[in-house]
């Protein structure tokens, strides 16, 4: 039953399995074990990033193409919900309309970009997505009467998900609409990740991996690589859109910096590379590590910066504003020395002595 649920793609390492179970249980019990808004916010962000990074892994890890427009689709999902909720009102039909509209926009956009750039050369894809994504981000902040511009949109969610809605008390914790929203996001994310596992372990997923390993050969065997690559990018875009929907529902706000910024794109890249490319599980591990580090390590950097305040250059380098510097160094080092990521390392340990 459990094997079927994860599409026969078992963790294949005792430590990895343990870590995954720990993550799922911890996320499920966060409201009860770690009280407080910050812990809940961090947990919700972890969940959203797991979906976002796992969908990116379908592209980067399984198909072997780099897209810089992933946050654009993430943003489309979030803006879809935000715009529908502000224009129509905080009702379920409005929400559904927003999600459907966002999915449609992402579908068309990713199909056009994919067909257009992958037809010529796969290497164009990275450059063209970068250009389109930056143009989209500019447009989103310029169309202020529609998207709220730089300020973004703050909106209301349906009654049932509001913090003011009380459902009684459970195990000593007041179960309100906020918690209901958290568990809704949790369940949807779980389903989405399992669906992604299903996709990558299907015959379609195998073709994608064949293209990643040797596209010329895959084409020669008779698979239209353009079609498969485009389908993979469309699927990945749709999942990213849904991740954006989840984030918007949780935050009840969306703006350019929360979903469209290039920093988020880097976070996703880092999550996938550190967690392990080509293993959906890597996205889970990577997201937990990165989001926790982002939320708690920056406090540590603040302390360190305070300690070396007098020293001129060092104080600058360890200041929390230079967080991205350390991410970048970590990123380059992990691409060089750690290409299989955490999951790859754990699996090769589990597989017995390392082959020389």
């Amino acid at each position, binding site marked *: 039953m459990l094997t079927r649920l994860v599409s026969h793609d078992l963790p294949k390492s005792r430590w990895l399995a343990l870590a995954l179970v720990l993550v799922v249980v911890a996320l499920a019990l966060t409201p009860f074990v770690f009280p407080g808004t910050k812990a809940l916010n961090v947990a919700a962000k972890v969940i959203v990033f797991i979906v976002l990074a796992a969908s990116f892994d379908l592209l980067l890890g399984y198909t072997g193409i780099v897209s810089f427009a992933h946050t654009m689709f993430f943003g489309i999902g979030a803006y879809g919900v935000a715009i529908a909720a502000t224009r129509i009102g905080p009702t379920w039909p409005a929400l559904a309309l927003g999600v459907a509209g966002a999915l449609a926009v992402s579908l068309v956009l990713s199909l056009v970009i994919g067909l257009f750039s992958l037809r010529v050369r796969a290497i164009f894809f*990275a450059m063209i997505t970068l250009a389109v994504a930056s143009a989209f981000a500019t447009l989103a902040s310029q169309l202020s009467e529609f998207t709220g511009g730089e300020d973004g949109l703050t909106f209301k969610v349906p009654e049932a998900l509001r913090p003011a809605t009380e459902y009684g008390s459970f195990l000593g914790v007041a179960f309100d609409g906020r918690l209901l929203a958290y568990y809704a996001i949790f369940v949807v994310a779980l389903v989405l990740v399992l669906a992604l596992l299903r996709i990558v372990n299907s015959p379609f997923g195998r073709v994608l991996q064949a293209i990643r390993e040797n596209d010329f050969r895959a084409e020669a065997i008779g698979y239209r690589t353009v079609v498969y690559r485009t389908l993979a990018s469309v699927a990945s875009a749709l999942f990213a859109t849904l991740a954006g929907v989840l984030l918007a529902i949780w935050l009840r706000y969306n703006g350019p910096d929360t979903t469209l910024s290039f920093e988020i794109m880097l976070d996703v890249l880092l999550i996938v590379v550190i967690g392990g490319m080509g293993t959906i599980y890597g996205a889970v591990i990577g997201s937990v590590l990165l989001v926790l580090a982002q939320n708690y390590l920056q406090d540590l950097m603040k302390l360190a910066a305070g300690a070396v305040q007098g020293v001129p250059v060092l104080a600058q380098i360890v200041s929390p504003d230079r967080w991205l510097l350390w991410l*970048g160094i970590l*990123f380059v080092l992990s*691409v060089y020395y750690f290409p299989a990521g955490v999951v790859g390392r754990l699996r090769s340990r589990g597989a017995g002595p390392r082959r020389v």
Partner: protein
Amino acid sequence: MTSIAPAAAASSTVVGEAIPRARFDVVPLLLVVVIALAALPVVGSPSTWVTLTVAGLAMGMIVFIAASGLTLVFGLMDVLNFGHSLFIALGAYLATSVFAALAGPAASSSRAGDLAVVGAAMLAAMLLAGTMGLVFERLIVRPVYGQHLKQILVTIGGAIIGEELIKVVWGPAQIPLPAPESLRGSLLLGEASVEKMRLVSVVVGLVVLVGLLWTLNRTKIGLLIRAGVQDREMVESLGYRIRRLFVGVFAAGSALAGLGGCLWGMNQQIVTPQIGGQVNVLLFIVIIIGGLGSTLGCLVGALLVGLMTNYVGFLAPKLTMFSSIGLMVAVLLWRPQGLYPVVNR
């Protein structure tokens, strides 16, 4: 392919005759003229049109300077450098430092003195960016030759590190970069006003263009570079170290990116930490339009993008970014490998 066959057949009949000269393709160049002329009735007043066209050509030249290195690096070694934006930012930031350092002596001096300051800033930008290019090539690019996916990831990572270090040195705030006193304002050509700084950019761009064309077409190194772009293995098997050549091209390309960034900053009169990223997007569009690896294509692409951006920026400012993307789409539909496709790729 079909167009080559008759030529080959013709030359084989007369043994010993020189290889037939490749016909020069003028259509893309005409396209630049056509777009400029087509914009005239849309823009309306001729004086505005002259201003916009000069601004477009200046922007095109700057983008060409910055992009020429990128396209050669790709053509020579198949290295797709996403870290090119770093050198652009470096050039722009160094210009602010040079201006600040020389502000005292230049404040009261003549136009010659101001031009000397600008020249010093450009030279310094080229030197620093070129040196950093060498370091970048050694530390970031060299370990991942031949692996496209890793190249993209690692060069992006390198660019992030570099740009954060720039923020450590120059601070995260935007820095104004006003042109020197005598180069401010604009000249009046009839009713059209042309900013002086743009003229400087056009002149510098032309100098770089001539220098580049001369190096590529009239020197042995240029011959090797062009041959390497066409067929790397053949050049290697003739005994030339293409790797060493590549390092040189990488450093020169980075230096040109620094120069481009320096000029871009002076034209914008402000330097922000995002400058590299903004220009980089344009560079990618330009080298895709031109055909990866082609210098001439890079020039034509840059001029097209520069003109298009300025016309659309005047007519419908919100669509500026999409106009270059639309242009790229149109060009790729017409010629999927870019305006001047490089053979054997």
